[in-house]
């Protein structure tokens, strides 16, 4: 009987009691602390009145056991999903439940109930009939009065109350609920990936391995661009998309899934190097990543881990970029990213970031390993490739659009970078599409 006595000790703790009271004051929802056997250890003043809604319903023939079951089931769910659960406890009457744990076990739970989502006057007569249950003669007025005495909590307020309740449950629990938060984190990520898959399904009627690898290739370029810019949140969003694409293909084959993740890892770390992480550092990090990857045995952990890897890479980039040079460099790169269609010279970019041309050239060469001119060409070619795939503009138009003075110069640079002409590239990519 370790559970109940543990909670008994807690309910005598004045600090906890004051937190429970603060919750009631803040949300107006009645609150109970119930142990795992269903015994009420602490309850708010609402329940002291004989004519409270729960008492009246029970006198109308609702077995207390069904209430207990509703609370306990919700508590188990909250344990499983790592968050407070908002659910119905009796027809349209609502509850919010959060688990209190001792060791690995559910020791009890906090139940914030009863409350309503709408004004009782908006309830339909056929809904209220349910509350009379078997006892048809039950006093209508007493019930109406009891209904009107419970709080109405609307829309996002319930979410806030749920969040608040979970925090209190966290303090009551031993150890705290951080273990559950990990569960929640994993679930949240799975939810995000599921959403991405759903969005992809809306975009495209039927996937083929071909259309998926094309999609992967395009999305991969996007994430590289985001990492290069140091855009953490943007990169994360695209990572969810990439995970969705990978999971559509390999969900039931864990080995292939792992291989695709490894491939993704290499893309990410290469982008991080481009963004300024020192190669020696990256090699060390990569080694760590690969040993970690080898140990992962399940899909959920794998996805969560990739997100963590991206975070680490972005941290690395952020640290390097915090030097003064990087502030300037980022400014220059951002400028190129938005002005590639204009005639750009070293002088023009240098002026934009208040550096001399030679100083800028030096910074770029030392940080990126290529000259400014090469970098500008690289950005332009990337933009041109996207336009070539769209096939809406002619090659000469594309050349002008991305900032080359004429088609022949564009073709020359393109050939140098991609080892094929723009025309051939356009043809290949259109064949890939069909």
């Amino acid at each position, binding site marked *: 009987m370790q559970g109940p006595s543990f909670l008994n000790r807690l309910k005598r703790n004045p600090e906890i009691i004051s937190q429970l009271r603060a919750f009631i004051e803040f949300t107006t929802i009645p609150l109970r602390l119930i142990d795992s056997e269903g015994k009420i250890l602490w309850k708010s003043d609402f329940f002291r009145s004989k004519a409270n809604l729960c008492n009246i319903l029970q006198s109308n023939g609702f077995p207390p056991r069904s209430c207990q079951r509703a609370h306990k089931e919700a508590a188990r*769910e909250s344990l*499983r*999903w790592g968050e407070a*659960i*908002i*659910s*119905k406890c009796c027809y*349209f009457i*609502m509850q919010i439940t959060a688990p209190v744990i001792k060791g690995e076990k559910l020791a009890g739970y906090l139940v914030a109930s009863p409350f309503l*989502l*709408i004004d009782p*006057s*908006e309830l*339909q007569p*056929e809904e209220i009939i349910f509350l009379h249950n078997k006892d048809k003669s039950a006093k209508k007025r007493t019930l109406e009065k009891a209904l009107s005495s419970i709080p109405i*909590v*609307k*829309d*996002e307020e*319930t*979410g806030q109350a749920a969040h608040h309740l979970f925090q209190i449950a966290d303090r009551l629990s031993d150890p705290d609920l951080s273990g559950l938060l990990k569960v929640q984190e*994993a*679930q949240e990520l*799975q*939810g995000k*990936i*599921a*959403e991405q*898959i*759903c969005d992809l*399904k809306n975009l495209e*009627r*039927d*996937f083929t391995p071909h259309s998926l690898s094309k999609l992967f290739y395009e999305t991969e370029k996007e994430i590289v661009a985001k990492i290069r810019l140091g855009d953490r949140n943007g990169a994360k969003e695209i990572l969810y998309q990439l995970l969705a694409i990978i*999971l*559509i*293909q390999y*969900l*039931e084959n864990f080995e292939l899934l792992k291989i695709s993740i490894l491939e993704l890892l290499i893309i990410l770390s290469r982008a991080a190097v481009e963004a300024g992480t020192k190669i020696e550092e990256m090699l060390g990090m990569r080694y760590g990543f690969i040993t970690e990857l080898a140990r992962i045995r399940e*899909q*959920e952990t794998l996805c969560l881990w990739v997100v963590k890897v991206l975070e680490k890479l972005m941290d690395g980039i952020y640290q390097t970029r915090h030097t003064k040079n990087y502030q300037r460099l980022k400014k220059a790169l951002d400028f190129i990213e938005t002005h590639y269609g204009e005639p750009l010279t070293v002088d023009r970019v240098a002026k934009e970031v208040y550096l001399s041309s030679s100083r800028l050239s030096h910074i770029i060469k030392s940080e990126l390993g290529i000259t400014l001119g090469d970098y500008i060409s690289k950005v332009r070619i990337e933009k041109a490739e996207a336009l070539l795939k769209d096939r809406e503009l002619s090659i000469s138009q594309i050349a002008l659009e991305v900032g080359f003075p004429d088609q022949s110069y564009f073709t020359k640079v393109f050939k140098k970078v991609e080892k094929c002409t723009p025309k051939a590239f356009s043809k290949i990519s259109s064949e890939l599409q069909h």
Partner: protein
Amino acid sequence: MIHREKKLNLDNAINRKLEKEGSGAVLKRLQQAVVQRDCNGVKALTERMVTEGVELFEILNQGLIPGMLEASERFRKGKFFIPELLMSSRALKFGLSILRPLIQERNKDVLGRVVIGTVKFDLHDIGKNLVIILLEGSGFEMIDLGVDVSPEKFVNAVEKNEAQILAMSSLLTSTMSWMKFTIELLQASGMHRRVKTMVGGAPVTQIFAKNIRADAYCREATSAPSVARKLLGIESNARAVFSE
């Protein structure tokens, strides 16, 4: 009580307006009434369309269900909170309570028996519940196993009820494998010859359905009736269940 009277006047106004509109526009308004959580509006519009002789399944499939789907889409996009979603499903119930007895009366011949459930619990098993409503509406007998259903439970229910179709939904990529395990168990017990499987849910794709050897993939809730009919060979001119 003044509140009620106001609502009543509003209902009359809705009915007057209805007379001037075509059924397409009214279906759209019914859909919006579900999204707006307007119980009285849903009741009035559904009743009116029934008396005007609009096909029952059309009211369901083009009015009530798309409204609920839009509400859950709003929830997914973070525009709706849980209470709003619950209120939409409450409004939906009022429309269903009008349609259900009429549909039951009409569908005296059962097309087939379907066992349905989600492989793992999700707070919002809306998709599954909509599929139940739609399949019931088109004449299937539904056996709802609810949420968090194990492969054994699915297989036992199929056997006990002599179901022709087993429908499974999953909402998380992490629980989708349970569909595969269930189908494997069906095969191991030799029951796969007697029952057809159909799968669906937000993260479920046709590639996945094919890989786990499901008999059919249901892209969205509203396509469930035609997929189910096709599975039982009732609809001869329907599209292939798997489009290659």
